[in-house]
C-alpha cells in the first residue's frame, strides 16, 4: 500500500502533519536575559578563581596553559616560601580548556561559573590577581574539583522538560 502511494504527494502531507503537530508543543527556547539556565556543576566558565592562601607559586598552571596565557611572578618570602607578586590572565585569549585547574597540585585554582564577559575595552579582559582572588561570593565550578560538586545546584536539562516524546 505504501509503495503504491509513493510519489503521489502523501509524503508531503505527512510532513505537513508533522509540522502541524509541533504547533501544540511546548516551546523549548529560553528567554535569555530574563530566564537563565542553571549551568553544569563542572562548567568551565569565566574566569579563573585563585585561592591566595593555597597557592605556593609553583607556576604549574602557567606551564600547562596551551596558550601561554597565565603570567605569574613570585619572589622569595620570609619563611622558606614564595610570595606571588603577580598573577595575571588575559581572559580574551583564554580558551577555557581547564588544563591549568587540572594541573594545579594544591587545589588553589578553580574555574568560575560566569559566562557574561563582554566588555568595552580589550584591556578590561586582562585580569590581575585582585580580580581573580577568591572571595566567598564568587561561585567556583567543580571542574576537576569533585569536592565542590555537592554544593552546586542541579543543572537544567532540556531532556527533563517536555519536548514532545511519548515516553515520559
Amino acid at each position, binding site marked *: 500500500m505504501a509503495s503504491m*502511494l509513493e*510519489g*503521489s*504527494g502523501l509524503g*508531503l502531507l505527512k*510532513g*505537513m502533519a*508533522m*509540522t*502541524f503537530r*509541533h*504547533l*501544540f*508543543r*511546548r*516551546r*523549548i*527556547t529560553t*528567554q535569555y536575559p530574563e530566564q537563565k539556565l542553571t549551568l553544569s556543576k563542572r562548567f568551565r566558565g569565566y574566569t579563573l578563581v585563585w585561592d591566595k592562601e593555597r597557592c605556593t607559586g609553583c607556576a604549574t598552571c602557567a606551564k600547562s596553559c596551551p596558550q601561554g596565557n597565565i603570567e605569574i611572578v613570585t619572589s622569595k618570602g620570609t619563611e622558606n616560601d614564595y610570595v606571588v607578586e603577580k598573577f595575571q590572565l588575559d581572559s580574551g585569549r583564554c580558551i577555557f580548556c581547564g588544563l591549568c585547574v587540572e594541573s594545579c597540585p594544591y587545589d588553589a585554582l578553580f574555574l568560575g561559573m560566569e559566562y557574561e564577559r563582554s566588555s568595552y575595552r580589550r584591556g578590561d579582559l586582562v585580569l590581575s590577581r585582585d580580580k581573580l582572588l577568591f572571595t566567598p561570593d564568587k561561585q567556583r565550578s567543580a571542574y576537576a574539583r569533585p569536592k565542590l560538586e555537592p554544593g552546586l545546584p542541579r543543572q537544567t536539562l532540556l531532556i527533563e522538560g517536555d*519536548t*514532545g516524546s511519548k515516553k515520559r
Partner: protein
Amino acid sequence: MDWWPLGNFWAHFAVFALAIIVFVLLMVMVFIWFERRAFGPFQMRWGPNRASPWGALQPVADAIKVLLKEDIVPAVADKWVHFIAPVVGFLPVLLIFAVVPFHDGHGLIPDMSIGILYVVAISALSVVGVFMAGWSSGNKYSLLGGMRVIAQMVSYEVPLVLSIISVVLVAGSLSMNEIVAAQEIPFFVLMPLGFLIFLIAAMAEINRGPFDLLEADSEIVAGFHIEYSGMKFAMFYLAEYGHALAMSAVAATLFFGGWRGPGDEYIGFLWFLLKVFFIFFLLIWARVTFPRLRVDHLMGFGWKFLFPLALMNVFVVAAEMIVWGEIDGGMPWWIVFINLPAALVLIYLWSRLFRFGGGRVGVNA
C-alpha cells in the same frame, strides 16, 4: 453606492486609492509579523517578542532599520534600471487590489467586468521588476535568480489561469464581486482540485515556500536582490509580502467566498480578512515544511503535472456545468461527493504517469 456621501467617482477613487495603499502597507507589516510569529510554534520557539507585547512592533523596528541603511549601488550596475526595478516590482502588487472586493461591492472598482483577467495580467507584470533587478545588478547570482524567475512565472501562470477558468465557468462572470456573489457554497468545496492547483500555482507565482528559487539563499545567496540594500531592498520585501497578500486575497475571493459569511452585511470585511489570514497560514505552513524544488523539477512539475491536471479540471467542471448547471442556475452542493474523489483519483493517477525528467546532463568540460 447610495449611502456613499461623496457620490462622486473621483472622490471615491481618491479615498479608496489611499485606503488601499494604507491597507496594503499595514497588512504587509501584519503579515511579516504574523509569519514570523507563526514560524515560532512550528519550530518550538517564540518568534519575535521583544519589541512591544508579542513583538507586534517588530516590523516597524525592521522598517526603521532598513530605511536608515545606506543605499549601495554596485559600480557595475546599470544605475537607472537598478533604481527603477523595485518600483516596477512593487507597483503591480498595489494595482491588484483595485479590483478586490473587500466588502459587498466595496473596493476601488470591485465590479470591474474583467476583474479576474485584470488580476492575472497585472500580477504577471511584477516579474519584469524582478528580472530588471536581476539583470541590472551586474552580479552572476542575481542574473541566475532573474533567469529563474522568468521561467517560473511563465510556466506557473498557465495552471493558475486554467484553475481560474474553472471558477469563472461556475460563477459565470469575470467580475470579482459577482464571483463572490455566486458562491452560495464556497468554490473550494465544489472544486477542491481547482483550489489545490490555484494554491500551488499561486505559491510559485509569489515565489514563496518551496518555490523560492529566485531567492534560494542556500544556492544563489539571495538571487535577484543580492545587490540591494536599504529602502530598495525594503521595496522588494514589501512587494514579496504584498504579492502574498494579494494572492491570499484573490484566493479568498475566488474559492472561499470573499466577504461572505454569517452577518456579512455588517462584518463582511472581517470575514474577508479572516479568510486571507487562513490562506496565508496555508502558505506559511507549506513554507515551513518543504525543501526547495530544483529549477528543472519546477518546470517539470508546472508543465507536466499541474498543467494537465488543470486542463482536466476545466473539462470536468465544464462537463458538470453542462449537465447540472442548467437545472437551478448553479452547481448543486452534492457535487462535492463527485469532485473530491475525482480530484484524489486524478492526482493519484497522474502522479503514476508523472516522472521528474532531467537528471544529469552530459557536458564537455
